[in-house]
């Protein structure tokens, strides 16, 4: 690499075209570094996304099943019609996906904000609390699922043992048809509230203290200061947290599959769109149908992200 080539400017472009081959390459590389740097990563991601996505779109218009290699016929929008009129599996799965994400997000943001406020001002022992916050965050979701399976086990689980001590009858938790989804939401809240805490805490620490101080001088109490000063200033950060967490919550798969297995349990209690699409693809080999589900799922994700980004722009102004 030539050290002598001066920085880019009009005459440099001429100077870079020197006869020596090494000089030539170096000059070329420096002039095109923007794409030289960015292209490999973009090509990698592009090839791994664009091609599979196009294929998924194509598969969703065929009756492909059994094996992707098997002959399949073009059926137009038939799969979409089948899926959209399926009130037994598809629409309940949409409902579960949205309620799982919605309830988990609300709990995580409210709890996360409370914990972030608790941690905001320094205190002794802070280090230990921060470690405790980090541990669920990095734990392997499948292992976490197994851990909760034991804790929520109706017969030997610690939760029912604890409830028994205060006289509450044993609950079925994960094995109950009505309680399973709620239990998995609880697991999600346990694992991911810490992430919301970290994001909100970063937001709180970057706030200037002046508005809060001024409101205190004017005699505003802690609740007034939070709801009228801190919260409005924090809104953009809150929306970032919802955005980052929401994308992952919509796509939750690991703990659902680890705790309830194929099809989200025998009554599909926790079958969200992602679990449903995975099952159609890899447990039942219905590639045409599953592709249609995936395209619709993808549209839901993009749609909700777009709404949130619009909201963030409105709040930031």
């Amino acid at each position, binding site marked *: 690499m030539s*050290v002598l*080539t001066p920085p880019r400017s009009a005459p440099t472009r001429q100077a870079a075209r020197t006869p020596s081959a090494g000089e030539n390459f170096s000059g070329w590389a*420096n002039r095109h*570094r*923007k794409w*030289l*740097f*960015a292209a490999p*990563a*973009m090509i*990698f*991601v592009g090839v*791994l*996304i664009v091609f*599979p*996505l196009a*294929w*998924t779109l194509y598969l969703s218009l065929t009756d492909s099943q059994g094996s*992707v*290699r098997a002959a399949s016929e073009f059926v137009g929008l038939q799969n979409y019609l089948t899926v959209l009129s399926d009130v037994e599996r598809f629409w309940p799965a949409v409902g579960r996906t949205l309620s799982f994400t919605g309830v988990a997000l609300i709990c995580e943001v409210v709890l996360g904000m*409370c914990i972030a406020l*608790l941690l905001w*001002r320094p205190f*002794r*022992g802070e280090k*230990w*609390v921060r470690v*405790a916050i*980090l541990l*669920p*965050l*990095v*734990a*392997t979701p*499948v*292992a*976490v699922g197994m*851990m909760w399976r*034991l*804790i929520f086990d109706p017969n*030997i689980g*610690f939760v029912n*043992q604890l409830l028994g001590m205060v006289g509450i009858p044993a609950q079925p938790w994960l094995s109950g048809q009505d309680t399973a989804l709620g239990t998995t939401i609880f697991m999600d809240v*346990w694992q991911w509230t810490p*992430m919301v805490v*970290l*994001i909100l805490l*970063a*937001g709180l620490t970057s706030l200037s203290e002046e508005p809060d101080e001024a409101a205190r001088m004017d005699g505003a109490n802690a609740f007034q200061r939070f709801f009228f000063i801190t919260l409005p200033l924090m809104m953009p950060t809150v929306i*970032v947290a919802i955005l980052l967490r929401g994308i992952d919550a919509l796509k939750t798969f*690991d703990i659902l*599959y*680890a705790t309830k297995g194929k099809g989200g349990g025998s009554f599909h209690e926790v079958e969200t769109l992602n679990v449903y*699409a*995975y099952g159609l*693809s890899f447990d039942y080999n219905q590639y045409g149908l599953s*592709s249609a589900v*995936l395209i619709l799922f993808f549209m839901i994700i993009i749609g909700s*992200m777009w709404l949130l980004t619009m909201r963030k722009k409105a709040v*930031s102004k």
Partner: protein
Amino acid sequence: MTVLTEDTEPQTAPAEAAKTAPRPRKRLGTRAYKVFRVAALVAVVLFLIAPLFWMLLASLKTNVDIYDTGKSFFFTPTFENYANVLQRNNYLVFIFNSFWVAFVSTALSLVLGVPAAYAMSRFTMHRSALVVLMARVIPGVSLLVPWYYVFSNLKMVGGFEVLILSHMFVALPLIVYIMMSYFDSLPLELEESAQVDGLTPIGAFRRITLPLSVAGMATAGILSFIFSWNNFMFALVLSGSKTKTLPVAIFDFVSYASIDWGGLMAAATVVTIPIMIIALFTQKYIVSGMTAGATKG
């Protein structure tokens, strides 16, 4: 473990009391808040730690003790479960597989991702960045069917290459995202003055910017390692018997007729312990990675 007394209160409290004149109600309020705060923090820590502690306890019990509710906390610990898991079930191989896949996919993603993030940050290539970040949004299942088809035709399913490729797909967007916000915060002047002193733009990147970005790269690398280590879905479909990673191995544990709880908890502990130890030593980096870009408007 947790001595949660206020640290700064002694300094601020008198000043505050002086400011707001002697109003006993106020001081009572702050004292009540102090007690509440300590109690709340203890509750939070318990809520987050207790399940993990329970998992660890169960992994040290025999299956008979796990079924005995009288022995929840007092029992004779045994390492039998760990011995079973590590020796009989090939877990050493799975640990190596997980480590190797996470390590290689992180290293390759850093090589591809850091220069890309640099270009996207310096030339504000927002649309290009969006393409890479799309990878974070797309549901993994929609990529798995085509990948599986192509890679099984190439006879690559069950090999390390395909697992590493699929994990890079998770790691790369993460690294680009974190490094972009890191480069955004790095002042341009250093590079510019290096160029005035005769370095080429690429030379300035290599000798000035990269050494200054070690912390950022550590952040991105550690997080991508953790995400790869924890990844389940891609390995579930794309790994073979020889390349099985730990999360898949744990999942396979429950497909037997009756669950060996002690063994399962030992396996779950084995997969979480390494990552938690890494997290303890690199706490600072993980926090900055998780919150990267969150506070820019």
